[in-house]
């Protein structure tokens, strides 16, 4: 009499586990697909990558040589975008996390920032053309592209920075305020140092995603070919994602350019994964180091 319910319970739990296994299928399909994509790109791209490849400009009609101008161009615009978006983003996040009263204006600001994160990148491209290229006459340049990308990654930086600040317990601030510090002093000495790794994580993730963006730079400054590295922020530039796009779809000798395309894809992916990887490591260290976080 006792064994029957136990038996049934075991069966019920067994079935329950079986059902859950079915739910694992989509996750596995997704992971396998992603893994295959990475494997495919690296298998075809990794032996193209050499010291030459990353330190030389394209040669013989982009069927030989390297992709140095693309690497430099991509890092350059990404840097310009971050120089613009880090201060604004971090300051805005400090306001939202530390100062903002719970009122309509704050809710509107939060809502606007979150909405910005959902605006398609091509729309940022249009805005960049209207404001930076035409409006303030930056022309097609590193600066115009960088600012456009900066607007795009601004909401990402704000979101992660605000989260990092909010995760610092209130007691940290109260301790400083109790001994007579002003609010800013409390934030500066008792909050920012602890939130810094989290903010940095957000910046690294934003950096990685910005590097791979194509649509915002398409009409604001990227170029198919320039042998020189961009020396002034008002010059046009080559960029890894656009180079990949052009070689994959527009080159006249697709097959001859294909190894270079694979190499470009691999280099871009390595750069993105590298910054993402550092961000993840940092996040894990924060999770283990911040004992106050349960």
């Amino acid at each position: 009499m006792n064994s029957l319910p136990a038996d049934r319970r075991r069966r019920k739990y067994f079935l329950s586990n079986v059902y859950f296994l079915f739910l694992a299928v989509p996750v596995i399909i997704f992971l396998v697909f992603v893994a295959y994509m990475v494997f495919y790109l690296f298998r075809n791209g990794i032996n193209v990558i050499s010291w030459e490849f990353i330190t030389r400009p394209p040669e013989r009609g982009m069927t030989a040589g390297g992709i140095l101008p693309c690497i430099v161009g991509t890092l350059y615009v990404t840097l310009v975008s971050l120089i613009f978006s880090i201060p604004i983003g971090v300051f805005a996040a400090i306001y939202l996390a530390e100062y903002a009263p719970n009122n309509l204006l704050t809710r509107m600001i939060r809502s606007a920032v979150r909405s910005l994160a959902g605006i398609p990148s091509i729309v940022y491209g249009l805005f960049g053309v209207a404001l930076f290229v035409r409006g303030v006459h930056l022309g097609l340049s590193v600066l115009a592209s960088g600012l456009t990308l900066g607007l795009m990654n601004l909401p990402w930086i704000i979101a992660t920075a605000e989260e990092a600040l909010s995760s610092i317990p209130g007691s940290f601030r109260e301790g400083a305020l109790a001994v007579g510090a002003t609010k800013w002093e409390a934030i500066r000495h008792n909050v920012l140092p602890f939130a810094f790794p989290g903010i940095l994580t957000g910046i690294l993730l934003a950096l990685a995603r910005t590097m791979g963006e194509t649509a915002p730079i398409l009409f604001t400054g990227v170029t198919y070919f320039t042998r020189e590295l961009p020396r002034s922020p008002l010059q046009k530039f080559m960029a890894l994602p656009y180079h990949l796009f052009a070689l994959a779809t527009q080159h006249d000798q697709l097959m001859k350019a294909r190894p270079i395309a694979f190499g470009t894809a691999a280099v871009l992916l390595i750069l993105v994964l590298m910054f993402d990887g550092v961000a993840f490591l940092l996040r894990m260290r924060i999770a283990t180091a911040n004992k106050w976080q349960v």
Partner: protein
Amino acid sequence: MKKLFTVATLISTMLFGAEIIVKGSDTMLNLTQRLAEAFSAVRPDVTVSITGGGSGVGINAIINREVDIANASRKIKSKEISSARSNGVNPVEIVIALDGLSVIVNSRNPVSQLTVEQIGAIYRGEITNWNQLGGPNKKIVLYGRQPNSGTFVFFREEVVKGEYSPAMRQMNGNAQIVEGVKADEGGIGYVGLGYIKGIEGIKPLAVARKAREDYISPADESKVRSGAYPLTRPLYQYTNGRPKGIVRDFILFELSPQGQKIVEEEGFVPVTQNYSERNNQILQ
């Protein structure tokens, strides 16, 4: 602000050497890129930056004073000339090479020659099956370019003479058309001569102006050179006013024997006598 920008550009040019900005035709993209590469070996002090996007993009950029040279695989339209004039821009035309626009099909397709009118009917969507042209019973799949392409415009003016069938796949570049037709037994596409040399799996059609005339293949370079091939077209570069300084140097290099050798290597046809006389007048 505009002034400030001009000053900034001037200073950066003075400090860092000169830059020529070229934009336009995708058909000419690789050709100009090769030319720029060779040019920078001769003149390391000059940077040439090249962007594609299509002939319309390039001409538009010269109208807006954004570039030094516009690449175009079609002639500038009168509408474009007038909008250039109203912007104070005077477009001047140079021919740097000739191209035989090639109509390609899959190499397993038995059809090997068509008239311009038949090709036009195919692209207008009036002929939809290869059996209407003596081929197998197979649906015709159209591959073409996007409207920003000079090839798109040239082909429409010279061959389609009407609206393209909306079912035409609009590929990003010539190379994608080649790839598409290579994989598609029912496919037909049009690409610059430079794209068909040494490519397996596709074949260029011999084309006749009218049903009773000779069918001529673009693979025969002399026929492209003489203009006997019906879809021969010049490849243009436009500048604002007569080219001066380093822009002139670059164009002279393109037209030099060394430059024209690259034109041939890239699969195009060197500039013929009558065009080079016209060029010389402008470059005097």
